[in-house]
């Protein structure tokens, strides 16, 4: 079976869990377990390959140019973690079946659990850095859902958010680190990266990479000072804790360090940072664990301590340290999972986790107590149990390092102290809970759990014993394979066995056990001392920080984005001014090399009209009708300017748009205040805005002059040369629109259509104040449709339509075309609305303008798509000449069909804008001459 199924099957299991959520619990648990179990079977079937050195892989290209590929591989390291994730995951599924209460939504629980399992498998199996990061973040997200599973509880929500924030922030650091690695190596492929150790080590970015990757690992693995989230995550249901804090979530950080161990370690920086952080975490966690009264709190800090131990091992510069670290990963996962499950059983059957209340439980649940005691002994490092072996290895390795130079002797000493603390808190776990008198007012009488709730614990405890007694037999090959991943140059000889003879590590173990017993004996004194510290609730402190950050962010956002359009446009215009001004400053001289043409009186007159019109618009802007008149003057002169400067098409377009625009403005003015006060303009504001306006005007003017006085090297000659031969038309502008740049035009009529539809929506259901008189109190004329206007416009309509047809048809060769013809038709129809009224038009066929738009766009599209039938690209044009009697020689071109589409779209859009607005004005007009409504 292919490797891809290993992460995919649990992902499918998410669906199974959701679907089976309503079925009986046992069925749900069984159904959920099937797919991960198959995945485990696949992994087991691949084990011989991995041991033999043939690493199974899966590779599929996704976006190869960005080095983004779906890539998985199962090397020794990945195999070890995969076995833990799937194996312990399955046990947790079984355990949770009995742990969850009937009120809990078990389907959601199992779905989140399997999603998390998928994410973890993705992390450990990924052979592409970006893909690995994706799964890494997915673990943060899915663990959020698991920790906050009891979302009605405030501590669960806060704990989940804290875990998410800290590990998520670390994830971002990791992403930066991975991107840097990709930059240095030139590939995101993991195997390429692992082969480029020297390249990375010699890069100047090496320290940055190490720090960023370690930030990711330390936050995830709860290393000091990023440990605070782990105890808070204990608000999760115990099966979640048993999974997240033994085999998976927190081990992801360890995995990351191990994954990049071959390329990133072997430098002073790595050893110093990793070992010291690990040592601090080891001691801090072990010390704090001793004072926790909550069973899960003790286990949480013990987990932190053990994670520190593993990190410390990864930071020691001895041959076997990293291998010892991996061995401890297995051992810790096994005994910690069983301990969490035991704690969950106690909580479940005794109703409390407070060790001040839990006493003497051995009498009530001897079997569970025995299992828990064995596991706790393994945690303490008692011989014949797996915890002992890896702790011995730590002691041995700590003697061989020389990280701190002449102070290196401190490390074995501190490690022994850590060992003693571990013995002390393990002893407390055993003695305080199972012996030490009678229970103190527990909510219920403790008893043994259901048989199958105990089974996962039994399996794990048996593993503790088996590994402890026959280490070489059970995990020897696996560790060999892991070693091959960590040390590609060759794994040194090693032997794991229970008995190495009398030596220093054994003495250190002995000292640790004796010291631990002594510490536990003196616990009363230590508790009194510890009580003098003021305990800070990490959750509350964190929450306070979060709230402060949010408050700052909100006030910052309100400062920048205060909802004032005026302010936004002010800054946009200022920014535009800077963008325009900077290049102009660098331009030595505004005037270019071209000779200037002489001033002709027509041009001068037009310019003066434009200037006067613009300034008048500005000055009269409070008197809106007059401002509208002056704006229309400007528009008219602009269209004349186009005509003067050899652009007849533009002149025609501008002229017809001008008419439509002015009608639109007049309609709008009917609904808007027609006069506004000027008192609100503060003098400061006027000066400021005049200043900006002057600067902008000067900038644009200079730019125009600079452009006009310089020669242009444009691509236009191509269009002029090919318009007739390639496009079949002599009006080059029209040929460009419908042929050369037809796709642009297609986009533009689409925009036009969208604007029209947007306006249609804006006008739907509008509630408008329709004044019955103008601003001076004069009532609107009741003669809405003057006879003369009606007569003239009705007789003009056929003529106008004929003109527009003519303009349309000649467009390809003479000024005209779809845009202009469409506007003329639209105006001719609007004129009918104005002259005869909406009702009159409705009686003569209610035109659905939306259909014009739809037809126009469809015709334009189909005329372009037609070229696909001839295996040509979209909008390839075709034309030919034909001869008909009477008509004579004429031309047919596919571009004309396209132009027809443009024509219809323009009619539809213009009419639906104007007519829909116009309809609003009529509904309230008095229908009877006496002014009633």
């Amino acid at each position, binding site marked *: 079976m292919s490797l891809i199924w290993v992460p995919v099957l649990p992902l499918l299991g998410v669906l199974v869990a959701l679907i089976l959520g309503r079925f009986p619990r046992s069925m749900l648990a069984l159904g959920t377990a099937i797919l991960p179990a198959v995945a485990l079977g696949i992994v087991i079937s691949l084990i011989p390959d991995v041991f033999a050195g043939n690493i199974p892989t899966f590779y599929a290209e996704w976006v190869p140019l960005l080095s983004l590929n779906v890539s998985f591989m199962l090397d020794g390291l990945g195999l070890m973690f995969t076995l833990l994730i799937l194996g312990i995951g399955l046990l947790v599924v079984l355990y949770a079946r009995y742990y969850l209460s009937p009120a809990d939504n078990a389907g959601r629980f199992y779905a989140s659990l399997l999603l998390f399992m998928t994410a973890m498998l993705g992390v450990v199996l990924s052979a592409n850095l970006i893909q690995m990061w994706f799964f890494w973040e997915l673990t943060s997200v899915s663990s959020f859902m698991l920790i906050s599973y009891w979302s009605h509880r405030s501590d669960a929500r806060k704990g989940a958010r804290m875990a998410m924030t800290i590990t998520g922030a670390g994830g971002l650091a990791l992403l930066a680190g991975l991107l840097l690695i990709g930059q240095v190596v030139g590939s995101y492929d993991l195997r390429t990266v692992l082969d480029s150790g020297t390249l990375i080590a010699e890069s100047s970015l090496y320290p940055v990479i190490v720090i960023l990757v370690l930030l990711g690992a330390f936050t995830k693995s709860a290393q000091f000072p990023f440990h605070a989230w782990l105890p808070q995550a204990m608000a999760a249901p115990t099966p979640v804790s048993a999974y997240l804090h033994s085999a998976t979530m927190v081990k992801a950080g360890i995995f990351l360090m191990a994954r990049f161990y071959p390329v990133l370690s072997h430098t002073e920086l790595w050893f110093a940072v990793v070992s010291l952080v690990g040592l601090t975490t080891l001691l801090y966690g072990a010390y704090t664990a001793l004072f926790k009264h909550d069973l899960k709190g003790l286990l949480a800090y013990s987990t932190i301590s053990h994670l520190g131990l593993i990190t410390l091992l990864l930071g020691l510069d001895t041959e076997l340290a990293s291998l010892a670290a991996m061995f401890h990963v297995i051992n810790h996962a096994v005994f910690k999972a069983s301990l969490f499950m035991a704690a969950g059983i106690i909580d479940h059957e005794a109703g409390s986790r407070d060790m001040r209340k839990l006493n003497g439980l051995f009498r009530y649940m001897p079997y569970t107590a025995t299992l828990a005691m064995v596991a706790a002994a393994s945690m303490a490092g008692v011989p014949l149990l797996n915890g002992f072996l890896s702790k011995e290895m730590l002691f041995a390795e700590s003697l061989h390092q020389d990280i701190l130079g002449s102070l290196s002797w401190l490390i074995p000493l501190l490690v022994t102290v850590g060992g003693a603390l571990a013995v002390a808190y393990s002893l407390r776990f055993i003695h305080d809970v199972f012996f030490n008198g009678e229970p103190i007012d527990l909510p219920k009488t403790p008893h043994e759990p259901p048989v199958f709730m105990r089974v996962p614990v039994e399996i794990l405890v048996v593993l503790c014993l088996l590994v402890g007694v026959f280490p070489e037999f059970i995990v020897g090959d696996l560790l060999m394979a892991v070693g091959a991943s960590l040390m590609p140059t060759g794994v040194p000889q090693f032997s794991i066995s229970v008995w190495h003879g009398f030596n220093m590590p054994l003495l250190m173990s002995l000292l640790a056990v004796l010291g631990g017993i002594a510490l536990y004996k003196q616990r009363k004194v230590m508790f009194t001392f510890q009580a003098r510290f003021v305990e800070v609730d990490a959750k509350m402190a964190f929450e306070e920080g979060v709230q402060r950050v949010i408050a700052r962010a909100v006030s910052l956002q309100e400062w920048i984005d205060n909802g004032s359009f005026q302010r936004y446009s002010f800054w946009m215009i200022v920014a535009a001014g800077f963008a325009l001004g900077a290049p102009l400053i660098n331009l030595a001289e505004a005037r270019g090399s071209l000779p200037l043409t002489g001033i002709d009186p027509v041009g001068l007159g037009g310019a003066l009209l434009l200037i006067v019109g613009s300034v008048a618009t500005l000055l009269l802007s409070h008197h809106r009708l007059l401002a509208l008149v002056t704006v229309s003057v400007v528009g008219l002169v602009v269209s004349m300017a186009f005509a003067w400067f050899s*652009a007849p098409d533009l002149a025609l377009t501008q002229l017809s748009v001008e008419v439509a625009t002015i009608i639109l403005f007049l309609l709008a003015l009917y609904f808007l205040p027609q006069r506004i*006060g000027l008192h609100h303009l503060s003098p400061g504001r006027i000066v400021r805005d005049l200043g900006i306006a002057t600067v902008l005007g000067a900038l644009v003017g200079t730019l125009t002059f600079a452009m006009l006085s310089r020669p242009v090297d444009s691509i236009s000659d191509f269009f002029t040369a090919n318009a007739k031969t390639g496009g079949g038309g002599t009006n080059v502008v029209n040929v460009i629109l419908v042929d050369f740049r037809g796709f642009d035009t297609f986009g533009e009529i689409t925009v036009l259509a969208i604007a029209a539809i947007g306006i249609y929506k804006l006008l739907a259901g509008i509630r408008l104040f329709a004044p019955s008189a103008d601003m001076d109190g004069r009532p609107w004329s009741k003669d809405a449709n003057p006879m003369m206007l009606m007569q003239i416009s009705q007789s003009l309509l056929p003529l106008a339509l004929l003109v527009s047809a003519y303009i349309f048809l000649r467009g390809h060769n003479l000024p005209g075309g779809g845009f202009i013809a469409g506007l003329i038709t639209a105006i001719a129809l609007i004129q009918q609305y104005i002259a005869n009224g909406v009702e009159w038009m409705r009686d003569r066929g209610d035109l659905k303008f939306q259909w014009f738009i739809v037809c126009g766009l469809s015709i334009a599209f189909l005329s372009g798509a037609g070229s696909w039938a001839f295996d040509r690209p979209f909008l390839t044009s075709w034309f030919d000449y034909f001869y008909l009697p009477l008509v004579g020689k004429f031309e047919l071109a596919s571009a004309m069909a396209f132009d027809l589409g443009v024509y219809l779209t323009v009619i539809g859009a213009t009419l639906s804008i104007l007519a829909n607005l116009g309809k609003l004005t009529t509904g309230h007009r008095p229908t009877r001459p006496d002014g009633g409504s």
Partner: protein
Amino acid sequence: MELIYSITVGVMVGCSVFLMLRGHTFSIVMGLTLMSYAVNLFLFASGGLATHEPAILADGSEYSDPLPQALVLTAIVIGFAMTAFALILAIRARADLGNDQVDGRASESDVLANKLEGEKLRQSPEKPSGGKYR
């Protein structure tokens, strides 16, 4: 001629910027309209200012640059759509918010002006009811 053309475009841009910085929707739409005139003239000028040389192919004469013309032609139509959209948006805002300020807050002087207008309407003999909502 180039200098005069540039000055004209500059003045139009200046006026439109001032109008666009106002708080009333109608002034802003006016400013937008002026601005699109100015921008079209500017774009058009990138092809040079030639008289009596339209880009209609005939025998061996000089032609003005057709490309800016094609660009400006669509710009005019799109500009119309944009102006229309902005204007209808202004009407809608007036209908929903009850004033014609872009920031949705009526200034005091406007409230006063509206009041005066309303009084005038009430005084007008033909139409005592003033108007109504639909």
